[in-house]
C-alpha cells in the first residue's frame, strides 16, 4: 500500500475518533434533566450536586467545556472518578491487562480453530467433515458467549475440578496458573468469532477452488499442502482478514459479559460499574479507548490487506 493511501486511511481514522470524542463528550449533556443532579443521585445534598457540577465543568459554556475536556484528553488526562477520585487513566491502566490478554487469546484461538476448520470444510465441500463444521458454526453463531462460558464452567470447574471457575491470575504467578485462568474465558469469548471465521473461510476457500488459477497450479503439478498454502489460502485470506478486523472489535464488547461470568476485574467490569454508578468520566474514557483500539485495528487490517493483496500494494 502506498504511503499516500496509509495517510488517507490515517486521516479517516482520526476524523472518526474526533467525531467519537464529540459524541462521548455529549454523553453527559444528553442526560434528561440536570446532569449534576442525576449523577449525584436522589439522596445527594445540594453541596454534592454543586461539587459534581464544578468537577464536570457543567457550569461553563458547552464549547468551553468541550475544548477543555478535549485538550485534557489529548494530554492523556481523562479526568477523575466521581466517587473514588482516582484518575481514569490509572483505573483503565489497572483494568486493561486481563481484558487485553483474554481478548488476544480469544483472537488467536478463533483464528486457529476457525480458519483451519473453515479451510478443511471448504476443501472437502459436501463431506461429513464439512457438514459437521457448518453445523457447529451455525450453532456457535447463535450461542450467547456467556452461556457457553457457564456451560464450560459447569463442565470444567464444577463437575470436574480441573480449572478455576473465577478470577484472573497474572503471568507473574506462574505460566500454569495464568493459563488455567485464561483458557476458559478466552475459549468462551472466541468461539462465536471462530464460528464466523469458519463460515467465512469455508466460503472463501470454496470460491477460490473454482478459480482458473487453481486449475493452472494443479496442471503444473501442485497439490496437497503446497497447493493449499501457496494458491488457495493466500487468496482466500484476503476477504477473511477483513472479517477478522470486524470481529476483533466485537470481541472487545463480548469481553464485558465474559468478565462478568468469570469475575475478572477488567475493562468491562470497570465500564459496567461506571454505568450503574453513572460515573461519567470513567465511561467516557472507556468509550474513547475502545474507539481508538477499533480505529487502530482497522488500520492494521488495511495494512495487512495491502500486504496480502498485491493489487492493493502496488496500486
Amino acid at each position, binding site marked *: 500500500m502506498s504511503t499516500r493511501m496509509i495517510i488517507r486511511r490515517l486521516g479517516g481514522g482520526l476524523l472518526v475518533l474526533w467525531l467519537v470524542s464529540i459524541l462521548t463528550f455529549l*454523553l453527559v449533556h444528553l442526560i434528561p434533566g440536570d446532569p449534576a443532579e442525576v449523577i449525584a443521585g436522589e439522596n445527594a445534598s445540594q453541596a454534592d450536586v454543586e461539587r459534581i457540577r464544578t468537577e464536570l465543568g457543567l457550569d461553563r459554556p458547552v464549547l468551553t467545556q468541550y475544548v477543555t475536556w478535549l485538550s485534557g484528553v489529548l494530554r492523556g488526562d481523562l479526568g477523575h472518578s466521581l466517587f473514588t477520585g482516582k484518575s481514569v487513566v490509572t483505573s483503565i491502566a489497572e483494568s486493561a491487562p486481563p481484558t487485553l490478554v483474554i481478548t488476544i487469546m480469544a483472537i488467536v484461538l478463533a483464528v486457529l480453530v476457525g480458519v483451519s476448520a473453515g479451510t478443511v470444510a471448504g476443501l472437502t465441500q459436501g463431506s461429513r467433515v464439512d457438514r459437521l463444521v457448518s453445523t457447529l458454526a451455525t450453532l456457535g453463531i447463535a450461542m450467547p458467549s456467556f452461556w457457553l462460558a457457564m456451560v464450560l464452567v459447569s463442565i470444567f470447574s464444577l463437575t470436574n475440578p480441573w480449572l478455576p471457575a473465577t478470577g484472573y491470575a497474572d503471568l507473574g504467578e506462574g505460566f500454569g496458573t495464568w493459563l488455567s485462568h485464561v483458557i476458559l474465558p478466552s475459549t468462551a469469548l472466541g468461539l462465536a468469532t471462530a464460528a464466523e471465521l469458519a463460515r467465512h473461510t469455508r466460503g472463501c476457500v470454496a470460491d477460490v477452488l473454482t478459480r482458473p488459477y487453481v486449475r493452472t497450479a494443479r496442471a503444473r503439478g501442485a497439490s496437497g499442502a503446497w497447493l493449499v498454502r501457496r494458491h488457495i489460502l493466500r487468496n482466500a485470506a484476503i476477504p477473511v482478514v477483513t472479517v477478522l478486523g470486524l470481529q476483533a472489535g466485537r470481541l472487545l464488547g463480548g469481553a464485558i459479559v465474559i468478565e462478568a461470568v468469570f469475575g475478572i476485574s477488567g475493562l468491562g467490569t470497570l465500564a459496567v460499574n461506571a454505568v450503574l454508578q453513572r460515573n461519567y468520566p470513567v465511561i467516557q474514557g472507556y468509550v474513547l479507548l475502545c474507539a481508538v483500539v477499533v480505529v487502530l485495528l482497522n488500520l492494521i487490517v488495511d495494512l495487512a490487506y495491502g500486504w496480502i493483496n498485491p493489487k492493493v500494494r502496488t496500486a
Partner: protein
Amino acid sequence: MTLVTKRSSPNPSVPRSSPAGRIVRTVLRRPAGATAAGFLILLVVLALAGPLIYPHDPDAQNLGNRFAGLSWEYLLGTDEFGRDVASRIIQAARIALAAPLISVGVALLIGLPLGLWAGLRRGVVDAVAGRLADTVLSLPAMVGALAILAVLGPGLVNAMVAIGIIFAPGLFRVVRGATLAVAEETFVHSAVAIGSPTRRTLWVHILPNIAAPLLVQVTILMGVALLAEASLSFIGLGVQPPDASWGSMLKAAYVNQFDAPYSVVPPGIAMVLTVLSFNTIGDAIRDAVGLRRGR
C-alpha cells in the same frame, strides 16, 4: 453489508403473484426454514397464551422446594426460590419476542427513512448520516450500548432502545445501498420524470423493491438483539428482577451454579433455538430471493 438484487424494469413490485407470498413459500419449502418458522410460531403462541398454559404461577415461590430436579410436576425443575422453571421460560418468551421487536423497531425508525432518503436524494443527508454511521459503527455494539445506557439508565426498555440505536447505522447502510441500486432502474427514473413526489417515489416504487434485503437484515437483527438483551440482562443493565428473561434467568442460574450446575441449560437452549430460528429464516430468505452475501 451490502445486499443487491438484480432487477429489471418495469417496476417488479407489481407482479402477478405477490413477492411476499413467494418468499414465504420458498422459505417454508426448505426443511430448515419450515422448522425454524414452526418454532417461532410455537414461541409466539406460548407467549400469547402464557397465563392459560403455565403449569405453575411463574412468580409463585416455594422455598421448601428450591432447586428441585426434573419431574412430571416440575418439568424443568425449580429455581433458587422454588419457582417453576418451565413456567418462567414460557413467561420469558414474551420478553424474548418483545425485546428484539423494540430494538429492531427503533433501528427501523431511524435507519429506514434516512437510508431511503440518502439513497434516492444523496446530498447533505447522505453525507452527514453516512459520517455519523461510520462513527457509531467504529464502536463495538456492546460498548456503544453501554454508553447509551449510561445516559438512559438501566432497564429492559432502555437497553433495547440502546441496542436499536446501535443497530440503526448498519440498517441505514443496507437501506441506502439497496435504494441506490433500485434508484438507477428505469421505472424509478420514469416515476421521477412524470413528477412523482419524493415521498411517493420512496413508498410506492422503492420500498417494495428493497423489501427483500431489508427483511433479511431485520430477521438477522432480531436474533442479534435477543443475544444483546440476554447479555445486558446478565450484567444487570437489562431486565430487572423479579421479571424473567432468559438472560436474567441465566444470571440467577449462574449465581447458584454451585447448588444446581445444570440449571444453566434450559434458558440457554431456549435462547439458542430462538436465535438459530431467526438466523435460519434470514438465511433462507436471502437464498430465496437470490441475494448475494457480502460485506
